[in-house]
């Protein structure tokens, strides 16, 4: 073998071998700061911290932007009807509607940069990442349903807009930040009107538009104390609940009448 060739081969080895052998695939681990959120009579919303680390990070500094992290916190899916008003004989009446069999009741997304820059449509759609890609299942059409694709899109957008107005759909384009070469964190706001149901936190690791790993974790959201007792009674024993409400009302009415009785 000629010396030159040998030199170039060894150079090639020096360059490529470590890259193949020492750097296994990056993976991700994550968790939420709170596993249990209690909804009590003093609940005014809260924040949860989602944090994690990229294993085998090759990122030189926290600001290098080698990796992209997307955190999606989703509530359970429930059926939703979107209605649209239009003017009929001078007054505004619900005339059209579209029913979705399954829409996340809560959806918060935080990422290291806007999700559309992180990955392409197909990937985002496949994992339901971003408002434009949230999985929403339509039901069979009813009489007043919109059928035109443009209208359907309008209803979908309206649904997302209304959920945003209620603060139950939240997006934070730069909400995830690296605090070290591999450690990252994001805070997710739970508003006071957050639908009470278990939440799932999905954490995605991207590099150059490719999904390298995903880690899921659960956050329980449940009523506690008197709130729980009242809600359960109202839902499971509504007759007792209704009768008790009436007795309470009558009791207060009578008490006040006696307490404030003036000589007639």
């Amino acid at each position, binding site marked *: 073998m000629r010396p030159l060739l040998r030199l170039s081969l060894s150079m090639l080895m020096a360059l490529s071998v470590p890259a193949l052998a020492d750097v296994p695939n990056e993976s991700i681990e994550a968790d939420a700061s709170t596993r249990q959120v209690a909804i009590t009579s*003093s609940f005014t919303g809260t924040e949860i911290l989602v944090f994690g680390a990229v294993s085998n990070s090759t990122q030189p500094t926290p600001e290098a932007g080698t990796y992209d992290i997307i955190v999606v916190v989703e509530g359970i899916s429930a059926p*939703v009807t979107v*209605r649209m008003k239009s003017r009929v004989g001078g007054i505004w009446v*619900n005339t059209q509607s579209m029913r979705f069999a399954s829409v996340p009741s809560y959806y918060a997304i935080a990422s290291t940069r806007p999700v559309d820059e992180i990955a392409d449509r197909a990937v985002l759609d496949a994992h339901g990442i971003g408002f434009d890609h949230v999985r929403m299942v339509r039901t069979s059409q009813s009489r007043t349903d919109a059928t035109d694709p443009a209208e359907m899109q309008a209803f979908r957008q309206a649904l997302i807009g209304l959920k945003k107005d209620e603060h139950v759909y939240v997006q934070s384009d730069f909400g995830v930040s690296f605090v070290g070469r591999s450690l990252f964190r994001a805070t997710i706001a739970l508003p006071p009107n957050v639908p009470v149901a278990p939440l799932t936190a999905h954490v995605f690791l991207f590099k150059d538009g490719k999904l390298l790993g995903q880690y899921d974790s659960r956050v329980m959201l449940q009523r506690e104390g008197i709130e729980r007792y009242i*809600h359960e009674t109202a839902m499971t024993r509504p007759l007792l609940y209704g009768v008790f409400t*009436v007795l309470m009302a009558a009791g207060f009415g009578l008490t006040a009448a006696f307490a404030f009785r003036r000589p007639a």
Partner: protein
Amino acid sequence: MTLYLPIAEMSVSIVVYVALGLSIGFLSGLFGVGGGFLLMPLLTFLGVPSAVAVATSSSHVVASSVSGAITHYRRGNVDIKMGIVLLAGGLTGTYVGVAAVKLLRNLGYFDLTVSLMYVVFLGVVGTLILVEGVNAARHVRATGGHATRRSGQHSWMEGLPLKMRFPRSKLYISIVPPLIIGMFIGCMSAIMGIGGGFVLIPAMIYLLRMPTGLVIGTSLFQIVFVAALATVLHAVENKTVDIVLALILIVGGVVGAQFGTAVGEKLRGEHLRILLGGLILLVAARMAIDLVLPPANVFSLATATGAS
């Protein structure tokens, strides 16, 4: 200071809602009305889902009418027999009304129906009360305050079957009109979250020709039971009664009512009627404006669960 409402699923300021309860109570004591017609619209303006507002208002009506009903009963101002006939219709009507609420919510026409009913009923009744109040005030000024007696005839009712004697009211009439009136009020009450006294009282005076002295007591008697049934049925059928919201409003309401009654006794009846008529028309106008003006967002959401 805030409180989380378990059924409305929202966090609200206690101060605002106690103040609301006090003001509604004050006005209901002042005018001798239940106040449901003010409470329901104000709750929806504050962001409470309309179905929760209606159901919870019903429980407020129970609290605000029960003491009046008992006072009138003690004074012998209740025609129990007539009250029971009205109630028989009223309870049926309530059942129909609650079922209608369920159906209308599924169809997406609940808010519209409630608004239209408020505009129509409050508009008509408010105008009548206002006109009557103004006329009475003029009359008082002209004659020194001697009211003219109505004639006691109700010829069109003479032909109806199932006549019954009502000794307290000194009436011998068919039970069909009170049954129908009771049913109508019950249905209206369940859909609008009100006692319905402002429609029931004129109906008893002008249609049934009951003696004026018995009208208020008898209507309160029927309203207590109709509102109680409406509350229970809303709880069972629609799961929209928020007991925490009810509690705040009732505590404010019963206290406010005592002050209202005290102030009301210092004012002249016709002036009270002019004020009440004006207030009712104001609520009707506000509701009408919301129907006519383009909404801020033409889209709205409805979920399958009880609230929101």
